[in-house]
């Protein structure tokens, strides 16, 4: 059925719609107050008719905004976590910088990129190596105390033998008269001191420091603090249990003593 046939069939309705639209157009083209008043009425009617459409659109907009806000909240949470982490890192670095300025030791900073704290060997991997002037057997510490020593050194990375490693030993001084002894790790953050005679006075809370007689470790680096002292009548030495001072399990940045 072509257009003209359709028009012929419905010509009365088409003509009426056309004349009505033309009349309304003429009427609203006037600029009198009466017309404005009717226009206002028409606007009210149209707003009532289009109300549900607007409501539905608003709901859709709110849904879209909600989804966007949910995404934003997720992103902001991630950012917040990152910022908290950065703040913590910043504080840690500030403390380390302050420590580096105070200590007479020549320190070089290093970032921990990997840690192996389970099993037989306890090691850390640093992102500094031969290219940065690192060589094997240099003491490694954090702001709290001795952490270990450099073991194998590559061009860009270094493996550190930790103080908690079963094979780690370090000569120390402890007690009222700074008697010599040997620190041996036992488990976790704990270790014990060998070789301090029973006659010496060592009390709980005493600090254990490196003796300085070793070729590797300079003296007076904090190693541990005494948590218990026992006297065994069958042994010539005190049984001293200590807690390692360094943050072995939570190190991000360390110092290499050069």
């Amino acid at each position, binding site marked *: 059925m072509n257009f003209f046939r359709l028009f012929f069939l419905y010509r009365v309705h088409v*003509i009426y719609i056309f004349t009505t639209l033309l009349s309304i157009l*003429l009427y609203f*083209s*006037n600029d009198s107050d*009466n017309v404005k008043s*009717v226009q206002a009425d028409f606007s009210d009617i149209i707003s009532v008719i289009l109300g549900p459409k607007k409501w539905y659109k608003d709901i859709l907009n709110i849904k879209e905004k909600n989804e966007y806000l949910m995404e934003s909240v997720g992103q902001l949470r991630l950012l917040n976590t990152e910022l908290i982490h950065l703040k913590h890192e910043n504080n840690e670095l500030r403390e380390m910088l302050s420590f580096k300025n105070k200590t007479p030791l020549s320190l070089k900073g290093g970032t921990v990129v990997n840690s192996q704290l389970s099993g037989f060997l306890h090691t850390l991997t640093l992102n500094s190596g031969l290219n940065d002037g690192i060589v094997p057997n240099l003491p490694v510490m954090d702001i709290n105390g001795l952490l270990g020593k450099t073991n194998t050194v590559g061009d860009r990375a270094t493996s550190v033998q930790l103080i908690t490693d079963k094979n780690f030993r370090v000569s120390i001084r402890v007690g009222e008269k700074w008697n010599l002894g040997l620190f041996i790790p036992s488990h976790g953050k704990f270790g014990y001191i060998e070789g301090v005679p029973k006659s010496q006075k060592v009390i709980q809370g005493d600090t254990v420091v490196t003796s300085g007689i070793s070729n590797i470790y300079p003296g007076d680096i904090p190693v541990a603090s005494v948590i218990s002292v026992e006297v065994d009548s069958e042994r010539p030495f005190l049984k001293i249990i200590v807690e390692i001072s360094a943050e072995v399990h939570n190190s991000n940045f360390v110092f290499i003593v050069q």
Partner: protein
Amino acid sequence: MSKKELKLAGLIWIIILFIQTFMPAFRINQMVIQPDLILVLVAFVALRYGGDFAIIFAFFNGLIQDFSTQESLLGILALSKSTTAYAFHFVQHYKTIWTRKIKLSSIFIIFIFHNIIYFYFYLSGNFSLFLSGLFVIMIQSIISFLIFLIIERILFKSKLI
């Protein structure tokens, strides 16, 4: 339609337009009432010649009436007249189905409808004013209907509808 009929129709149309333009309005209780002869003419045209021609005829007559009565609200009478012609089209369409009484009632309702549209727009959509003008609407519609009945009886011997 023959040439003679066409000339006669044209003459009647011009006479009615002339009378409508210069016909004096009369007052009942401070209300101005003027019989709408063009509305009656539109009714006859729609019932005699069908909707399509009647709508166009009504639209142009309404427009002429708009220009001659009030230019500030141009389009009111064109709208109300063409709507009336469209409604008359249905009366004509069901000419053989509806009874005379139903057709007459419909014509009267269409006259009222015409006046309602006109007064609604004329009174700028003010509903309280519109309610007070309902009496005028009824009087106008009755007058137009009576004129329609008289002419239909005289000219068409009550056989148009």
